[in-house]
Each structure stands twice: as C-alpha cells, then as structure tokens.
C-alpha cells in the first residue's frame, strides 16, 4: 500500500497527482501559455509555476479526499528539464516533506512517462517511443535499465513542431502541436521535405531550416535561390503543417520499427506530449498491424506532462525500497533515462 503525491514542473506545465496502489485519485495541471510567436522562457515559466503550485496541491488533496497524513511519500521531478521551473517543484516538495514528516523521492521525468504509460495501457514490455518538446527517444527495457536505442541527434521532435508553429504564428493554446495537428487536417498536399534517418537515430534541425525557408521565403539569405523558387511558393500553412507531420512522423515510425526488429519485440508504447497526436498514433498503429504487433497509446491526460506520472514512478521506486536522503533532493537539467536503476522490475 503506497500512497504517493507527485509534483511535476520540468517545462511549461505544473501538475500535481496523487496515486494509491495504481489507482488514480487526483491529477491536476496548469499550463503556462505564451502569446503566438513566442516560446516559454525559464524565468517567466518559474514565476507561473510559483503562483499556481500551492493552489494545485490543495485542490489535488481535496479531489483525492485525503489528508496529508494519508500520504506515504512525496515525489518530485529531479530532471531533466529547465532549472528554474524544476526548482519550484523541488522546493515545494522538500518543504512539504519536512512539514508533513514524509519521505521524499526525486524521480526521472522520462521514467515517469514510461511507467505511467505502462500502468494506463497495461503494456508489459514494449518498445517505448518517447516524444515531447525536449526528448525524442526509442527505449527498450533490459536488465533493470531503460536503454536508449535511438534518439534525435539534434533537436527534439516537439521542439521542431513548436518552433515551426512560432514561425507561422500559430496559437500556443492549448499547445502548438495540437494546433498544427488541426491545421494539417485541412490539407492533403504533400510537399517534399528532407527525410533524415541515421540507423535508429533521427535529425530534425535540417527539416526545420528547410521548412522555415518555405514558410518565409522573403527572409531567405540566399537571393539566387529565392529567385529560382519564386514561382512555386503557393503553399498554404495547412500544406506545410501536413507535410511536416507526415515527414517527421514517418521518420519516428521507421526508427521504432527498426528497434522492434532489432530487439525482437512486437509491442509499442508511445508516451510524451507529442504522443497524443492522433496522426502519429494512426501511423504507428498501421505499422504495428503490418508486422502483427500491437500499439499502446494514451490520451492527453497522461501523455502530456503531469504530476501523476511522477507520483506513480515514485511509488514504484518507494515500494521496491528506494530511499533518498534530503541532501540529495536537488534538481539536474541533464538526467539520462538509462542512468536510473529500475529496481521495481524483475524481468
């Protein structure tokens, strides 16, 4: 019987979740939304989180119908992420731990996503595609570690989408990726973009520069190139969104399939914010069907950063005997998925 409260604040979402033996008791979240054309900056994001976090703790306890005394452990995101927002969660977690005399656990954000996905979907030992604003990784479990088989060699897929949304001034509400997905539904005109797969790794920065050029031909540095392509710039924003999605998702599906063949697995689990994109899920499902496999995916409540996943991963760690002294309750911007010893899995 472990009842855990989890605090997540590694990027622009601040979320609190409470879980008791795999049963969801509360999952509340607030998102820092910036005006179109702007991204979220560390300092302002931290300010947003500071203003929201205490209210969220109270409403999560209320929703779960629990008193602080009912909790067994307080969990927070230790990394990876932006330092100032991470610190907000860590400081509140430390304070609550001392105030309520409860043990404290720092959780790896990526592990939180994976464990939450496994809990919600019931996938046993899948290949995990973890796609978000800061991460793009293909992961498989072996020998008490989540090992990274493929990843981006430059920017994350969500970062590529977010930055493109900024260029064409799409709204950040509820999220840039969601608005790209909706706009993409209005087109079926495929524009050829670079397609960059290197083994099980991918690269997005070249695609982003290329599509930036298409979206804003006037800004192009190279004048000769600009004149050459002057006639063929009747792309609509929808065409560009559609083509961008088709290209980068095909790359992700391809490296996932390669990891499946390499590891001999036939289950796929998609987690992370980009994972709630329905077109990505559809493409992955078709790939799985073509090879007799099975897809597991979740919706935005669990895909997008949330406190519940931190609570759940923390509860698993706590149950398997992991403890953390208060002196180690810091945050780190760089915290690789394969650094964590997965003490709660024995397979």
């Amino acid at each position, binding site marked *: 019987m472990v009842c855990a409260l989890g605090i997540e604040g*590694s990027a622009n979402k601040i979320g609190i979740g409470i879980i008791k033996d795999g049963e969801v008791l509360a999952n509340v979240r607030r998102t820092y939304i910036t005006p179109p054309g702007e991204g979220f900056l560390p300092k302002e994001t931290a300010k947003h989180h500071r203003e929201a976090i205490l209210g969220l703790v109270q409403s999560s306890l209320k929703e779960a119908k629990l008193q602080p005394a009912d909790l067994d452990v307080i969990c927070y995101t230790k990394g990876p992420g932006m330092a100032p927002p991470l610190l907000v969660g860590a400081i509140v977690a430390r304070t609550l731990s001392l105030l309520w005399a409860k043990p404290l656990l720092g959780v790896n954000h990526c592990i939180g996503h994976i464990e939450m996905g496994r809990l919600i979907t019931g996938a046993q030992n899948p290949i995990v595609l973890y796609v978000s604003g800061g991460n793009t990784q293909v992961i498989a479990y072996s020998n008490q*570690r989540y090992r990274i088989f493929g990843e981006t*060699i430059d920017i994350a897929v969500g970062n590529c989408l977010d930055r493109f949304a900024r260029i064409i001034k799409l709204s950040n509400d509820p999220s840039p990726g969601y608005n790209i997905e909706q706009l993409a539904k209005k087109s079926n005109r495929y524009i050829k973009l670079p397609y960059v797969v290197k083994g099980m790794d991918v690269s997005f920065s070249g695609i982003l520069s290329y599509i930036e050029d298409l979206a804003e031909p006037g800004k192009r540095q190279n004048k000769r190139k600009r004149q050459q392509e002057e006639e063929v710039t009747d792309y609509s924003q929808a065409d560009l969104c559609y083509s961008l999605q088709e290209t980068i998702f095909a790359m992700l599906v391809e490296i996932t399939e390669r990891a499946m063949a390499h590891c001999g697995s036939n289950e796929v689990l998609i987690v992370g914010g980009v994972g709630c994109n329905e077109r990505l899920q559809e493409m992955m499902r078709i790939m799985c069907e073509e090879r007799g496999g099975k897809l597991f995916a979740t919706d935005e409540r669990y895909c997008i950063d949330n406190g519940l996943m931190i609570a759940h991963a923390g509860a698993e760690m706590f149950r398997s005997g992991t403890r953390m002294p208060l002196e180690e309750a810091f945050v780190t911007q760089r915290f690789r998925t394969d650094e964590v010893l997965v003490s709660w899995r024995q397979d």
Partner: protein
Amino acid sequence: MSLEILKQGAEGRLYLGNYKGESCLIKERFVKKYRHPDLDTQITRQRMKAEAKAAGRCLAAGILAPRILHSDLNTHKLYMEYFDKAQTAKQFIQETVAGKTEDLAKQALEELCTRIGGIIGKMHSNHIIHGDLTTSNILINPKEGDYEVVFIDFGLSHYNQATEDKGVDLYVLERALLSTHSEQPYLFESILSSYRKECGKDEEAVLAKFEEVRARGRKRTMIG
C-alpha cells in the same frame, strides 16, 4: 511461385527463393501504408538503389557483402546472395557470452571486434557510409573452422567523403553496442582501435568529428 517467408525485418519481408537456378534471398520492401504514397515511393526506390550500389562497391573494395543478383524496382524486390549458415553478430555475441567463461568470451569477442573494426575502416577509406551499423546488420558466416564477417542491410548507405558522415556512422554503432550489449562495454573500444588502422589518411579528422558528434549528442538530455 510460392515463397517461403523467412522473417519480417525492419525494412521489408525476407523470403527464400531462387533466381536463374541459384537459391537466393529475396528482400521485398512492401508498400508501407503508414507513410504518404509519394514519400513511400521515394524512400523505397532510394533505398533499393543504395543497397544495390553499396553492395557492388563493397565487393569491389574486397569487403564481404551479399552479391545482388537482380533488382526489380517495380515489385520492390531485391534478389541477393543468401548465407544459410550465418548468424547475426548479435546472436554470436550473446551465445559466446552465455557459453564461455568470462575471459575466453572476452578474448573471442575482442577478436571479432578487431575484424569488424578493420572492415568498417576499410569501408570508410573507400568512402562507403553504411548508415545503420548495428550487430543485427553484421553476419558471422562459418567457414572451414573459422568464420568470415559479412555486412548486410545497406539500405541507408551512401557514398560520401565527408568526415561528418563517417563520424555519425561510428556514433550510431557505438550507441547500438551500448544499448544492445551493455554488459560488454569493451566491444566498441576494440572496434575503434582496429578501425583506426584501416580507415585511411583521414583518421585524425574522422575521430575528431566523431567526438564532436558525441558531444552534440549529450546535449539531448534536456527539457522534457
């Protein structure tokens, strides 16, 4: 002609068949319905051509790779030499580790890695970039009490003299080894040391580029 399906790889289905009387492996890159038809056609053609070209280049350079007997762009089928007794380096490594004492296994694997590294060096000195170096794409083919090392799956390969591409090729291999054979951390080191002897005059530049790609990689552990 009914074909016996061997397995479904990452890129397509593998069948046993024959071409003009010779038994062979048929690799069919079937249409992937998840991608846009234009993109699918483009990728399939590009990869089939790359595979056939690279195999020819390797053989010319004295590197073992399956001979391509025939390629049919309309049915997306590539007919190639089949090594029926071969196993993948991945299986070989796992079996060696399971069946031998630690010291003997290490010795046998270091020998294997020396050979692999030498071949990759030779490939790069001929400017062939494999593009997908993993232990699933290297075959161990038994021969007269010994074995020979055969490279397969050249779909992502290309011809390039740039150190960048060679560096990325090494990086992809290192990552594949770390994730697949995490209990044998010495593998990549042996590969790299014999690679250096064979990779030609660009040795320093390629290694420097490799370190650069690695450092680029580490930045990835950020914001999520």
